[in-house]
């Protein structure tokens, strides 16, 4: 029932200029590495990208930046990237910063048909500018709207051909909500298996949210290798 690709170029072929794209991952963990590389190659421009971070200069979403494919970035922390800074200062790149928990919840809301919700995060801060403030039980909250995307690019450890996905450890992060919030969700999986192979109680992303899958191998670069001192 799902499109199963063998070429990453083909998997992202339909992504057009001016698309809004969600990209899973936290830092470089859980990012759909090969889909991003293919998107760079596709040269789709004027993208709005929703992702917690924006990669590093030479990897992940940083590659889209280098190639000047992003018009607007919606994220919570974009501090690992010099080219990002340059484009913002030069006015080439628009940025919308969203508190991380609000970002996660806005994406969840988008996928779950919730147009808006209230959250305490950001009350009394620059984030509140232009936003409705409302008091519930004596505490102030901001109104935040749901986020959806034309395409969501996610990465999972395992996927079956019905689109069910299982993530590994902290590589889960934003991927499940994004899978649900994309009109078209493309999943890059480390291992593609037959339906029935995965335990139905262990599925993190039900297949209904996923339109196509492709198996690929990731580099899984480590940003901050921190080791215990050998005893």
């Amino acid at each position, binding site marked *: 029932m799902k499109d199963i690709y063998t070429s990453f170029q083909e998997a992202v072929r339909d992504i057009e200029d001016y698309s809004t794209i969600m990209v899973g991952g936290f830092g470089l963990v859980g990012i759909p590495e090969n889909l991003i590389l293919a998107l760079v190659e596709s040269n789709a421009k004027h993208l709005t990208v929703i992702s917690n971070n924006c990669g590093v200069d030479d990897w992940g979403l940083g590659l889209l930046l280098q190639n000047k494919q992003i018009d607007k970035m919606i994220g919570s922390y974009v501090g690992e990237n010099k080219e990002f800074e340059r484009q913002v200062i030069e006015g080439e790149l628009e940025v919308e910063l969203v508190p991380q*928990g609000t970002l*996660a919840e806005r994406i969840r809301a988008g996928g779950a048909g919730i147009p808006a919700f209230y959250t305490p*995060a950001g009350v009394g*801060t620059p984030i509140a500018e232009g936003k409705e403030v409302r008091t519930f039980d004596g505490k102030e909250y901001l109104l935040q709207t749901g986020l959806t995307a034309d395409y969501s690019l996610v990465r999972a450890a395992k996927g079956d051909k019905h689109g069910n996905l299982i993530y590994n*450890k*902290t590589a889960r992060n*934003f991927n499940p909500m994004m899978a649900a919030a994309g009109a078209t969700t493309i999943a890059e999986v480390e291992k593609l298996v037959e339906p029935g192979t995965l335990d139905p109680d262990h599925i993190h992303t039900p297949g209904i949210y996923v339109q196509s899958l492709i198996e690929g191998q990731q580099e899984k670069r480590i940003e901050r290798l*921190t080791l215990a001192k050998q005893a």
Partner: protein
Amino acid sequence: MAVNLDKATVREKIARRAEQEIESGFYVNLGIGMPTMVANYIQPDKQVVLQSENGLLGIGRSPYEDEVDPDLINAGKETVTASVGASYCDSAESFGMIRGEHLDLAILGGMEVSETGNLANWMIPGKMIKGMGGAMDIVHGSKKVVIIMDHVNKYGEPKILKECSLPLTGKGVVNRIITDRAVIDVKEGGLELVEVGEGWTIDEIKDCTGAGLKVHEDLYETKQ
């Protein structure tokens, strides 16, 4: 009398004092940077679960080389391990946990704190803005929010103020401030000095604090 210590010693001193905020059985979120260091000083007899907002409840120690999993990091993007009894979740669940006040304690860094518990720790106007990450959620999400920071900035100016001059991270969110010189609580009526660091006097603390300080009746010097 003022005390001069090298930076690493100061950080360790603050981290060790912050550790005393953690009770056995607590679920705790430690911010990136100095707060993360607090984990190194947690007494072994305390059962503590550290939460990482990128989706890990139960951060373990750093991995040995053969244990490194690139899919397993903390919110500071450092490789970690998971503790026994840990669980993974997505970022919406992770922040639901935070926002829903299921954490007992959050220890975060600060640039400025006001006498009403306002916190500024994410941006300096005119400098490149990197983003607030999870800080704006975390300050609303814990039963107790403790800020650890130097008492004064590099120009010797107070970081505890009547009003924050920097854009806020949260309004009325701080419960306690732990610095290299003192421990100060944010109370209904204003700030209250509850501990004075070794080698400092109450008057010296008042002099380097930019807001009025009541002195707690049981004030005692910080034990190191």
